């Protein structure tokens, strides 16, 4: 059972995160980024390719609903030794996608910033996701950029915000000409 792989340090009341496993190829629409169809064969190719190393530069985790073990999204984490870019994808047609994404952020941001000690943890949030925006700000993330009309929605376009969590333990001295 893949639920045995629930990361105890990334578990909450609403969602938990775990490593992706080969059986997840049957649910790739939920965790694979982008709107295009991904069949099981393609998903297996992606899973095998992304897990060639035990310490990859990109980690891809499943976001799973705590009650029922349904995969509701994916968290793709690119990082080097000091910088990480977090890309959260939620399954299509979820009525509570914003709440689930916010719950995932509440687990992922403290882990990456405070335990992994990333200097900067960055993520993008659409302007029509108020619960996730509130969660990011409660977590101490700063809105560092706004891309105007970046995303298409039925009937119009919306902005995309970039949020960054800066780790205060990195004692960064600002250049004098900044």
């Amino acid at each position, binding site marked *: 059972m893949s639920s045995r792989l629930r990361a105890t340090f990334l578990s909450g009341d609403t969602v938990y995160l775990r490593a992706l496993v080969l059986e997840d190829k049957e649910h790739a629409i939920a965790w694979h980024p982008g709107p295009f169809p991904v069949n099981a064969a393609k998903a297996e190719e992606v899973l095998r390719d992304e897990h060639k190393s035990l310490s990859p530069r990109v980690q891809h985790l499943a976001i799973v609903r705590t009650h029922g073990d349904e995969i509701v999204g994916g968290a793709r984490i690119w990082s080097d030794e000091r910088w990480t870019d977090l890309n959260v994808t939620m399954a299509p047609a979820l009525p509570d996608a914003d709440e689930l994404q916010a719950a995932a952020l509440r687990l992922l941001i403290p882990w990456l910033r405070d335990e992994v000690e990333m200097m900067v943890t960055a993520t993008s949030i659409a302007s029509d996701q108020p619960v996730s925006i509130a969660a990011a700000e409660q977590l101490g993330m700063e809105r*560092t950029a706004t891309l105007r009309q970046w995303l298409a929605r039925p009937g119009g376009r919306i902005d995309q915000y970039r949020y960054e969590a*800066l780790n205060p333990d990195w004692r960064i001295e600002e250049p004098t000409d*900044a």
Partner: protein
Amino acid sequence: MRNPLVVGQRVYLRPLELSDAAEIAWHAATEAETFMERWRRPASPLAFEHWITDMHKQRPPDTICLAICLIRDDTLLGDVGLHEIDWVHRHAETGSWIGLKEYRGSGYGTEAKHLLLEYAFEHLHLHVLSSWVWEPNARSAAALLKQGYKPAGRTKWTEVQHGYYRDTLLFDVLREDWLAARDRANPAPSSREEMGEHG
């Protein structure tokens, strides 16, 4: 002109060919500026050949890089490109590089960028474009503003310079921003005659 895609007054844009790889590698080898965080390093023509080959395999492409060439003699000046193209949300990131330093600061890069934006907005019907500039690269940031881009924010502590972490600035441009900038750069024909060629 060889296989032109978009044509301006002095330069045109064409697809990158495998035969351009050696020239681009030479541009990289003779780079004079140190403020560009990633480009001042020797790179093999083999790597550029691989990059060009891969780029043309993608359908639809998520990257479109185009050669900037002089109309008068086809000299390859550098390249401009659209990266991480999102065909659903109709946005992309732009980048540009004039590899021949004697052509910098003379308006060739701006003309090429306007051709790229024309291609992006008028041919591909993209809606919005972004561009990243490392904060110490003030010349590129100023050029973006001239081309119609607006400041969108920054990302913190991306690269190191002289022992300090420096930020990267983010810009975006909508079609109407670009049209206004293009009109400012190319006034109506009657007034253009009075002002002479821009750049």
